[in-house]
């Protein structure tokens, strides 16, 4: 029985999905703060949100890089 593979798939799924969702959600949150009417917050909030979105994109691309056999040869 391939229990190890099963655990591996479940774990990989959880880790990758949570990474992407957390980064993107942080980005959304920071964008929301940056867009608030009372702009009493420091100016680095909006750039930071872009950093979050960027990291999220990178995480996805890294995942694809791992999977596509063309790159791993």
């Amino acid at each position, binding site marked *: 029985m391939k229990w190890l593979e099963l655990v591996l798939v479940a774990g990989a799924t959880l880790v990758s999905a949570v990474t992407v969702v957390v980064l993107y959600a942080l980005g*959304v949150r920071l964008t929301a703060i940056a867009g608030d009417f009372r702009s009493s917050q420091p100016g680095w909030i909006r750039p930071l949100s872009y950093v979050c979105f960027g990291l999220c994109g990178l995480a996805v691309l890294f995942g694809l890089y791992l999977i596509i056999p063309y790159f791993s040869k």
Partner: protein
Amino acid sequence: MVALVIALALFFDFTNGFHDTANAMATPIATGAIKPKTAVALAAVLNLVGAFLSTEVAKTVSGGIIREGSDGVQITPDIIFAGLMGAILWNMITWLKGLPSSSSHALFGGLIGAAIAGIGLHSVNFASVLQKVLLPAVFAPVIAAAVAYVCTRLAYALTARHDPETGSKLTQKRGGFRTGQIFTSSLVALAHGTNDAQKTMGIITLVLISAGSQAPGSGPQLWVIAACALAIAIGTYSGGWRIIRTMGSGLTDVKPAQGFAAETSTAAAILASSHLGFALSTTHVASGSVIGSGMGRRGTTVRWGTAGKIVVGWLFTLPAAGIVGALTAMLVHTGTVGFVIAAVAGTAAVVYMFVASRKSHVGHHNAVEVEEAGQAIRFAKKKAAAVSRNNNSKGGR
């Protein structure tokens, strides 16, 4: 015979495509992230790309389930023909009912049924069936639902905003998730291409090998890859609006943040599983994700009635496709006449179901089926968009 089986395999690929458009595109269409027509076009292109990306799955498809090779039995094009017949018919029936059922299960069921009827019980490796088909079918929705649940919770927790002084709720401003959905659903479509187009490639390669026109143990040829990619892309573009309706609004009402979480989980699960060699069904994963994300958001109800109907459909997929496959195999076994009868009956059934699908729509409006379904979804979307706009203008500032 070989040419006919290849044509049938490509047709199966086509039904697979329009059956599974819903997996990738139901949630973004439901939340209004992408227009329905754009969504299916995008899914089609990404399926095409995905099919070329990796052929890992194609190499392992059906390997081990039916004992082949020197110590086992010789699998013939007849058996594959019968198996495909079962798979296609079951795909058409579930599409008519709007049930998201697994195309891979239909394929395996058809092949197993055909092998039992055509060769005998000993031809099927039941331990392998249990391990490769039945157990993943149980775990895929569970894993996907659990991950989607966690992701939905996280997405909502991270973006929940309260006024620090009064503690009252601020505008949540989760619109960003709608944009994100475009990317995550694209990822699901891509994953579908890498996963499901492979199955047909595997089948065609199997036929070519069994007919002696390709060396055993070699991978799919380029024209096979191209034909399969094209067939699944065209199928996806034709859009299974009936199943999109079930997945997009039948299970639970999907909000952008939920859709984002569900799609991320689906894509992660499919890509991880097909890469790590524990193949999961795209449909099982996607349905599980939608249900999981429904449970993850407070105030959302999951329509367990619909979910139950889908699960019953899953239970029937393997045996039903198997029975059709077995009947076809028996007919083909009797000789050329039986083969012709099987082919004609199969074609007639497909045509009948297609006509039936048209009829049920002409009853409501006299519009073309795709147009009408597309508009039904678009109306809902506009309403949803208007509501959220109202909320924004009320709560904002």
